[in-house]
Each structure stands twice: as structure tokens, then as C-alpha cells.
């Protein structure tokens, strides 16, 4: 039975629940917008990295450099899209 629950994945799951709890602090505690956004950015990106490495087995095979290059490419386009839009449409710069 215990071989069906590998330590790495169980710990990954516990850690992801922990990150969710930390993120919830922005709802239950009173804090500034900047502090809240910092917590959310940090917890969300750690959570995404955790899924990628622990659950999606991204770094286990010989195609790992192709996988990571592709993920980072997608991520860079995503960040440019989101922050470029914010710059032009919301922050009025």
C-alpha cells in the first residue's frame, strides 16, 4: 500500500496545500495591496513550479532541456502579454 504513495508526491501535495493557506492570508488578514500582491505572486509561481517538477516529471528524461526551453518560452510570451497590456491599458505609461 505504502508504495502507492511515494514520499515525494505526498510532500508535494502537503506543500501545495500549505501554499494555498499562505495565499489565503491576503483574504483573512488586513494588509496593503502591494503586500497582498507580493504574497500572491510568490505563492502562485512556487505552486506552478512545484506542479511542473514534482507532478509533471519535467526534468526526468533526456528531452528535459527541450521541455524547459518550451515552457520558459511560453512563460515569457505570457508575461510580456500580461505586463505589456497592463503598461499600455491600465498603468497608462
Amino acid at each position, binding site marked *: 500500500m505504502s508504495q502507492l504513495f511515494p514520499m515525494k508526491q505526498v510532500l508535494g501535495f502537503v506543500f501545495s496545500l500549505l501554499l494555498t493557506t499562505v495565499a489565503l492570508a491576503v483574504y483573512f488578514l488586513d494588509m496593503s*495591496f502591494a503586500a*497582498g500582491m507580493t504574497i500572491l505572486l510568490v505563492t502562485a509561481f512556487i505552486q506552478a513550479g512545484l506542479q511542473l517538477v514534482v507532478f509533471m516529471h519535467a526534468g526526468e528524461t533526456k*528531452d528535459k532541456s527541450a521541455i524547459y526551453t518550451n515552457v520558459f518560452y511560453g512563460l515569457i510570451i505570457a508575461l510580456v502579454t500580461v505586463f505589456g497590456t497592463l503598461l499600455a491599458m491600465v498603468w497608462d505609461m
Partner: protein
Amino acid sequence: MKIDNSLPLEYSTEENSLKILGFWIFLGAEIMLFATLFATYFTLENRTGSGPTGAEIFQITPVLFETIILLTSSFTVGLGIHAMRIGKQKAMVTFFSITLLLGLAFLGVEIFEFVTYVHEGAGIQTSAFTSALLTTLGTHGAHVTLGFFWGLFIILQIKKRGLTPQTTNKAFIFSLYWHFLDVVWIFIFSFIYLKGMM
């Protein structure tokens, strides 16, 4: 077909590992798709017109349920892949079935949430904010719905054909898709719901 026994079954042929890489490239495109939805949402989130704001319609309880359900389903599909790699077909099918049931529970809560929004006067045509919100949530929900049927057919095929290089490859690719949906949800949870309720 050359089978390399030093690798897990889903990676054992050249074609298999290319299919997995190909799916990663698809996920890269999906990251960009959701980025455009988030960019639109961030632009329009304060354009509420005469409709309600996010702070008025968001509720922490259903959102928390959705988050925990989806995180758990991501964990169980991971356990399913682990069971598959050690050759335990029965355990794998059980974990995959739990994953799909959690997926259904997630969709149930999300549909309940959408119905509540519409009752509170926040339909998809109410304001720029509700359009962007429901399009983003709906695109994620549509992905989960597709994933449910995809996973169902994977389970049926594994029951019929057993664990072969082909079926394990399909199951592994499905697990990548499911984990990716969890990642997207984490961003929806953080930057739509929690940010909106802060």
C-alpha cells in the same frame, strides 16, 4: 519498434517521447492562450458599468472548495501515474477514477457558482468585467469538461488493452493536461478571486 526498457513504459519508444514533447509544446501555447485571457481580465476588471463588482459577487467558500478539489485531483492523477509506472493497473484505474470524480465535483461547484452569478445579475453580457470574468472561468471550465471525457476514454482503453507503450503514453499525456489545468486554476484563484476580495 525499438523499445528501451531502461525508461518508463510511456517513454519507451522514440515515437512516445516525441508525443510527450509535442504535448509540452501544446501546453506552451495554452500558457499563452490563458495569458491573453488574464491580460483582458486585468484591463477590464474595473469596468463594471451598472453591474456588480468582483468584491460584491465573489464568495470564499465555493472558491476554496474548487481549489482544494482541484489540488487533490492533481495529486491523485500523479499517484495514478506512479502506480502505472510500477505496473499496478488496478491502483492506477482507481486513482484515475477518483481524479475524474473530483473533476466532476469541481464542475458541479463551478456551475453552482455561475448560476449564483446570473441570479445576482452578473451574466456574461452585464458589463465588460463580467464578460472577461466568465470568459476566463468558462475557458478553464471547458478544459476541465474536455479533460473529464478524455480521462474517461483513457480508463476504458486501459481496462480493455492493459498497460502497453501506447496506453501508458496516452495516460501520461492526459496527466500532463490535468496538472496544467490545476496550474491555471492556481492563477485564477490568486489573481482573480483573492485579488478581487482583498
